[in-house]
């Protein structure tokens, strides 16, 4: 059993794949449904005598709801799952097993990174297709091309997210520590990106790009795409260097 099959087994038997599938499917099937019934929900929760007018919900609104939740809840789940796989030295006994057999950090890290990232993107795609189906059933046609470009950009965002986890797993041993620092850094990037245009090139720009593309309001995202494509390579390179030198 080589390292790639071992990682596939890890993703399946630890139920991390199921956790990812569950979250993205719930978002994909749930958000369009929630959007569809939003007017009734709002009206039902309003106090007597208060009249609330909710605009008519559309297919882009449903996809926006899904994409926004992917950017927040989806990212959080990906960070949790990735940290559980990529914090190689979190359990000393297991680290001894791996480190005394795999002497190159590349062989130790890359299978884990690739498999957990691929699983996250695959489950994101599953959720996106679930959202597409549900939205089409409830609202009608969805701009398919924009949705697929959004999926590709959000997939790139997940490549970045897991590389952030790899990087901090090379400095911090505990899973919780890796999760905490990774989320803190991603939140900081999101806050910076929210500032006026100076930080529009940050990878967080891609986190909910599906929603922007559906509304034709993505703007110039190419700088962010370029940075998000390069950053994982730099992060993994740094992590490999660091892990290769770290004592157990």
């Amino acid at each position, binding site marked *: 059993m*080589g390292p790639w099959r*071992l990682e596939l*087994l890890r993703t399946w038997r630890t139920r991390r794949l199921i956790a990812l599938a569950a979250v993205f499917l719930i978002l994909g099937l749930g958000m369009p449904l929630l959007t569809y019934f939003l007017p009734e929900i709002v009206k039902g929760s309003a106090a007597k005598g208060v009249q609330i007018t909710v605009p008519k919900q559309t297919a882009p609104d449903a996809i926006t709801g899904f994409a926004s939740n992917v950017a927040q809840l989806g990212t959080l789940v990906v960070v949790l799952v990735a940290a559980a796989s990529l914090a190689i030295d979190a359990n000393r006994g297991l680290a001894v097993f791996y480190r005394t057999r795999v002497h190159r950090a590349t062989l130790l890290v890359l299978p884990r990174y690739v498999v957990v990232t691929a699983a996250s993107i695959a489950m994101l795609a599953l959720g996106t297709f679930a959202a597409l189906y549900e939205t089409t059933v409830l609202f009608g046609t969805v701009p398919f091309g924009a949705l697929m470009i959004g999926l590709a950009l959000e997939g790139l965002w997940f490549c970045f997210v897991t590389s952030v986890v790899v990087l901090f797993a090379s400095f911090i041993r505990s899973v919780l520590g890796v999760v905490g620092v990774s989320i803190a850094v991603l939140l900081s990037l999101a806050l910076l990106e929210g500032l006026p245009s100076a930080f529009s090139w940050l990878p967080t720009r891609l986190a909910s790009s599906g929603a922007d593309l559906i509304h034709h309001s993505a703007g110039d995202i190419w700088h962010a795409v370029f940075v998000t494509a390069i950053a994982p390579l730099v992060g993994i390179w740094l992590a490999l260097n660091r892990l290769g030198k770290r004592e157990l």
Partner: protein
Amino acid sequence: MKGLRTFGLVKTYGATEALGGIDLDVPAGTIYGLVGPNGSGKTTTLEILAGLRRPSAGRVDLGVAEDLVAYCPDAAEFEPWLSAIEVLDAAAGLLRRPRSRAALGEMLERVGLSDAANRRVGGFSRGMHSRLGLAAGLIGEPKCLIADEPAAALDPEGRWEIIDILSDLAGSVTVLVTSHDLADVERICDRIGVLAKGRLVYQGDVKDLLARAAPALRVVVRPPAGRLLAALADAPWVRSVKEGEPGELRIDIGDPRSAEVRLPEVLADCEVRLVEVGRAGVSLQDVFFELTATGPYRPLKARGL
């Protein structure tokens, strides 16, 4: 195949010196026992040899390629979601030496785990983990095996099985093993290194060490032996004396020549009823206590061994 050697191995943690210049010499194909009290630096030494820690100074010559060295930690751990046979499959696969299912099954049988081959490791006892750890080490057919307390978690029968497996490796694999059970070390090891406070206080053949040990006499008298015990304790040629069973004395001799002349005199003066006088067997444990000054009835003066 070359043996395993270290040259002036030093390991410090801040101001604490864990290893103070260790020169191990483990000839190829021998079984070498590294013993020492807790905290003497055994595990640190083994982890440096296994590549898990870097020495602060000195160097290591494993004698074989890095991927031909297997390390079995004292508390082996495996992914709980793998079965025993999958653990061996993964251990071989990660070393890029895949084995057939039959070979994996044979290895499990060798360590007494064939009945648990398809069980998830998460439910294994500590003893089963130890057996699987040894199997995972041997599955890659190493030329050098480093085992930290390989039989520590096992019952007496299990200990014998694991010790037998290790002793079968003699000649084909260089084995460096630590153990708190000195009887095991005495039984299977050709050479021994004694570590104390991060320093190698003895290294050589086990039989040479035993031959250089302090001479001791076993004297059996009809109880009570209190008067004889007191007289012997005061005798200048006696280094220490203790009573095991009532009337059974073990006398560590500082000056053998004086002992041969004076012992009958002391026995006569104390008017004891003598049952037996003979040479006491010297165990590795006695020598170990002496070298590391950790025994129950020591300390002894340094003997320059």
